[in-house]
């Protein structure tokens, strides 16, 4: 049987910035990566995209930051595992819909409150909860973010887990090597105050 192998990807992102009152902010440099274990000890599949796009409305509030209208996306074709055939399998078996389309991964969240760390006014933490769409299918998704402000630039990191089965996606396998159902995702990005337009996170 010519089974396919692939990887999974998923990610989520939330853009961040800070302004005095509800300024739109966009990601200026962002990357999403993922790791999924397999049934074979010592093999895990890792991938990355530097084409993260995101934006949000950011408002500074007395106890931290308030994010609204968080939107993020990653083009499926930008995801790279370092092996072309594996990328092809990933796109085919994870991200391609029944009608042959490969819609971008999309994350949306209505709002999130980021609390300032006590004694560190430039650092914030929040749980951004919304929906993540894979293959055009949306499911609830939540990711904790840590945000650090440095001058007018903000850096954020976060990690979470996506379950393929939540999206009805079968775990890919290749000659006895089967990926796990759970995919660990990690995002890193930076944003800048007052950037009102959508910015690309990197080359696509």
């Amino acid at each position, binding site marked *: 049987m010519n089974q396919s192998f692939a990887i999974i990807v998923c990610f989520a992102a939330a853009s961040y910035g800070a302004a005095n009152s509800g300024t739109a902010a966009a990601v200026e440099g962002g990357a999403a990566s993922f790791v999924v274990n397999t*049934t074979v000890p010592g093999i895990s599949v*890792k991938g990355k995209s530097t084409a993260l796009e995101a934006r949000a409305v950011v408002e500074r509030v007395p106890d931290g930051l308030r994010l609204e209208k968080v939107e993020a996306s990653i083009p499926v074709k930008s995801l790279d595992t370092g092996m072309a055939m594996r990328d092809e399998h990933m796109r085919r078996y994870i991200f391609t819909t029944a009608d042959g389309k490969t819609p971008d991964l999309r994350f949306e969240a209505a709002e999130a409150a980021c609390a300032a760390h006590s004694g560190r006014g430039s650092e914030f933490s929040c749980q951004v909860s919304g929906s993540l769409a894979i293959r055009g299918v949306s499911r609830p998704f939540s990711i904790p973010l840590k945000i650090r402000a440095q001058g007018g630039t903000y850096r954020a990191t976060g990690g979470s887990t996506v379950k393929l089965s939540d999206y009805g996606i079968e775990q890919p396998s290749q000659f006895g090597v089967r990926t796990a159902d759970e995919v660990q995702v990690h995002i890193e990005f930076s944003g800048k105050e007052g950037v009102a337009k959508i910015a690309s996170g990197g080359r696509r």
Partner: protein
Amino acid sequence: MMRLRVPLVMLTSVFAGQLKALPTMIRLGYVNCAACHVAPQGGGLLNAYGRSIDEAQSLRGGEYAPTTSDIIRALSWNGRITQDLRFVGQEQLSSTTNSPWVGLFRGRFLYRNATEFGSGVRFSATVVGENESAARPSLAYEPAVRPTQVYVTSALLSWRVHNNLEFSAGRDALPNGVNLPDLAIYVRSRNRLGYYDAPTQVKMFWWGKRYHVSPYFFAPGGNERSGFHETGGGGLAEFDVLGHGRTVVGVNALHGTSRLLDRTMVGPYARLGFGKWGIFAEHDITARTLLQTATSFGQDASYGQVFWAVKEWLVPAVAGERLTVERPYRESLLAVGAQVTARLTPQFTVSMGARIQHNQLTGRTSPAFTLQLAMKTPN
């Protein structure tokens, strides 16, 4: 002082080994060899998953599809036998200071077989025939084993107890650090890891997501020179430091004793991967004692390589080496080399390399150029 007897061909050999193990896969997060190779030590035959990776990483690319031929299936005992024929042809041009260039063609045929008997029991063997031997340097204190034109480099009975635990007994190369296929590098050729060094041994492989442990015991393989039938034991342990599958550090240590020589070796090493490129490093410290004269002396062998996967099928690399042997067998060698390997299809791989060795004691410089073609039958 006894004179060293080092054949020119070994001083300048670049790729004395067959192309086999691919530790460069660390760049993609493959922390050990068991995922792709039948034997967890790496090298040799690939399993079905490894063959699919082999196909995907060649210039031709594409999907690997196991044969559906009834004849092949019958020959493979319905998939229980994995086997192939392999040919490695190497043209080498080498010289040394004030000496003419010497050309040498070395052809080597290999038959490789791994037969599964069920319940995790496997017998594997590699039989080699060649036109020109490539023994490691024959040193006054440690002569090379006797090469023969037909040779069994590996014959192992293995038991895969669990998907991450295997025991093996038979003859084979001992587990070693970075596990590069080039047998001419100092960390191998000066530590009894040459092509014909296949001691009788019992070993265990236990590996997980972040670790690999291999204790081993060995005894003479039968082709050692008189007085150098070595018996001993050792262990290899490695760990993925950052847990991302790309930062493996480890140590290989062994002690062996024979009628004329005691040998203790400790070799820390690292395999680091960074996506398209990576680094190998190994430093082996060996202490030897000649028992008849109670002469003790040390040896340091260092190796470093940086490789870069320009394409998945095209991997150039540069390497540097250093060897220091203490009195009374004092040596001080430096070498730099570059090579490029092109995997055209899973069946055809071409390599070109250059290496320059400089003897700091004699001032002699020995350049060598090598072109190698490796072919194997599909399976």
